[in-house]
């Protein structure tokens, strides 16, 4: 019978893991890195939003989406549109043929703001749009797919195709969207210059806080009945349906949550990095985001964050010095994670041999291994479907 705090923060081990992550994000990184590198970490952490969402819908729900870039990009573009309009007031754009509209529109001979840009002059609208537009889009996709029982491989391919289509559309409509370069040269948010170092610090902390917030929400969902149902329907969808549940509703729900998280990440990306382009929407970035979650542990919300940081750090480090090697490594990473480490880093940390080495000495078979079943490792970097009654000894495989 879990209380609200238990639902949000998990067991003692889970809480420890969350505090550790918070310490890393809020203390360790800012103290050890210069602002340039910190900004880079901030960028990686925006990808982590997507990875955390994927833990929910893919790790627990079994829904592989190869198009999460769609929602990341939609959130990012909404924020970019607002910032661009702010940077394109008539004074700053006085030299254009049509002052008051973004530069790329002017280059494409547009003479007025397209209708769907106009509402983004308002900040409140923009904030709402960041949350609502991608989620509604996800809802539509979810309803169209899950109500018709399309899932698995078909669903993955269709999300991939939608990501491709959206990218082509955005690139093709240069005048409306900035085309392949995206929306760039963003300067101020409500008068506050986002390009200064102090702004970057503030945005970094805001980003971290929002990410922790998403993890806490994710934990709540996973520890509730919904979390157990997700595990159940991943395993035996028919059985769930024949227990009286409308399975599609749960799939739609978790897919929308993942989309919303990704959108927030996208918006924070725009703020921290100063632009948004279609190169974050398409097939390649979307599938990379999946690998972030896979490396960290597709069943672990916190693991997903570490996975994102690790892979992105590797990417930056290697592609400068050994660009050829990096792509080979990435490919090997995909294959390795699938074949050797299906539960990523988190899975390795929780596996039996680590536990035996660090937590308890190997046990004799006297009690039939029951003691091993009851053991909880000291720090479990996972959010699991926690037992509703914490008086019951937790079974061994609970961190799947």
């Amino acid at each position, binding site marked *: 019978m879990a209380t609200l705090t238990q639902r949000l923060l998990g067991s003692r081990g889970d809480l420890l893991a969350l505090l550790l992550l918070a310490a890393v994000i809020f203390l360790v990184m800012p103290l050890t890195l210069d602002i340039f590198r910190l900004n880079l970490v901030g960028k990686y952490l925006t990808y982590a939003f997507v990875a955390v969402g994927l833990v929910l819908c893919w790790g627990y729900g079994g829904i592989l989406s190869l198009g999460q870039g769609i929602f990341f990009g939609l959130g990012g573009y909404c924020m970019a549109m607002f910032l661009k309009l702010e940077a394109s007031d008539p004074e700053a754009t006085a030299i254009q043929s049509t002052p008051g509209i973004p530069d790329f529109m002017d280059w494409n001979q547009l003479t007025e703001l397209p209708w769907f840009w106009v509402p983004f002059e308002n900040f409140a609208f923009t904030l709402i749009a960041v949350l609502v537009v991608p989620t509604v889009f996800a809802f539509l996709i979810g309803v169209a797919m899950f109500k*018709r029982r399309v899932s698995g491989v078909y669903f993955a391919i269709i999300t991939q195709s939608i990501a491709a289509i959206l990218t082509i559309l955005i690139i093709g409509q240069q005048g409306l969207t900035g085309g392949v370069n995206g929306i760039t040269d963003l300067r101020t948010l409500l008068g506050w210059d986002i390009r200064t170092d102090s702004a970057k610090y503030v945005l970094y902390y805001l980003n971290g806080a929002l990410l922790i917030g998403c993890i806490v929400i994710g934990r709540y969902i996973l520890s509730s009945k919904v979390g157990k149902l997700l595990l159940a329907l991943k395993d035996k969808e028919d059985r769930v349906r024949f227990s009286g549940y409308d399975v599609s509703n749960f799939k739609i729900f978790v897919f929308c949550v993942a989309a919303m998280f990704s959108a927030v990440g996208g918006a924070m990306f725009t703020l921290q990095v100063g632009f948004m382009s279609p190169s974050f929407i398409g097939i390649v970035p979307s599938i990379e985001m999946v690998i972030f979650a896979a490396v960290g542990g597709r069943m672990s919300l916190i693991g997903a964050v570490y996975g994102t940081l690790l892979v992105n750090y590797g990417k930056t480090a290697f592609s400068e010095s050994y660009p050829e090697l990096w792509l080979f490594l990435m490919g090997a990473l995909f294959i390795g994670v*699938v074949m050797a480490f299906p539960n990523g880093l988190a899975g390795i940390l929780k596996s039996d041999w680590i536990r035996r080495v660090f937590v308890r000495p190997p046990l004799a078979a006297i009690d039939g291994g029951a003691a091993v079943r009851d053991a909880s490792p000291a720090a479990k970097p996972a959010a699991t479907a926690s037992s509703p009654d914490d008086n019951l000894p937790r079974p061994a495989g609970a961190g799947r």
Partner: protein
Amino acid sequence: MFEGYTASELGAIFAMQGFSGLSLFCVFLLMALGLAIIFGQMQVINMAHGEFLTIGAYTTYMLSTIAEQYAPWFMDYYFFLAIALGFVIAFVVGWLVEFSMIRFLYKRPLDTLLATWGLSLIMQQFFRSTFGAREVSPTLPDWLLGSYQLTEMTEIPINGMLVVTITAALTVAVFFLLFRSRWGLKVRATTQNRVMAGAAGINTARVDRNTFALGCGIAGVAGAVFTTIASTGPTSGSLYIVDTFLVVVFGGAASLFGTIASAFSIAQAQSILEFFLTGSMAKVITLTAVIGILMLRPEGLFSIRVRK
């Protein structure tokens, strides 16, 4: 969109766009055939399928270079060798891939997607390291260039006709292989009831391996064909991969005819729209329409009602 053209002009436009669409259709069809065989047989979607096309394309390029430098008398004939060799090399690589990786992942189709994506990254980087990042083109033999004047308004390119011929021949060959040969019988038996097929003495593992390799080999032929349409780079395979998946899913993956019809309609729709709109909008509209139809009829255009 259609104003300003006379009826006969429109007819000619459709015919010519239709024919250029035909080359596209052939590449789609060959890629989709290979993928449909694999998907229909083993429920495996191979994200690296495009890279097998690239194998065939680079093979053609290498043969062309060798012929040019060492055996100019061979220039007129090398293309046919390229097709055969493209098939063989792609077949062998596919065989090895199935043996070392795919066969461990049969129960996990989503994980197969990711693993084969990783494979495609590795293959692409291999191409980049071996052939360079810039696009290359084989020197096509003389008789392949030029076109044939059909009527006053329409000209049909010769390489287009060769491409269609090769595709038709290969499709027919696949049909006979799958539906009229003993081996094809084994393949179909394994697809429909794996356990019973195994119990009846069919080596299902070997059938799977050969089927996968066959699908990859066909993609290799698609690659040779591809060199007549466009230049080859390390990422050429990824150009068509999304379309190929949609073709397979749209056609239902259950029937050869479905795959053909699906490839034809998607290629033609795109090609014809391209004339009247920009290239990107043509693609967007076609793909969106396909997805829209799939949402209404998820099992694809052609499927058989089966008792679960």
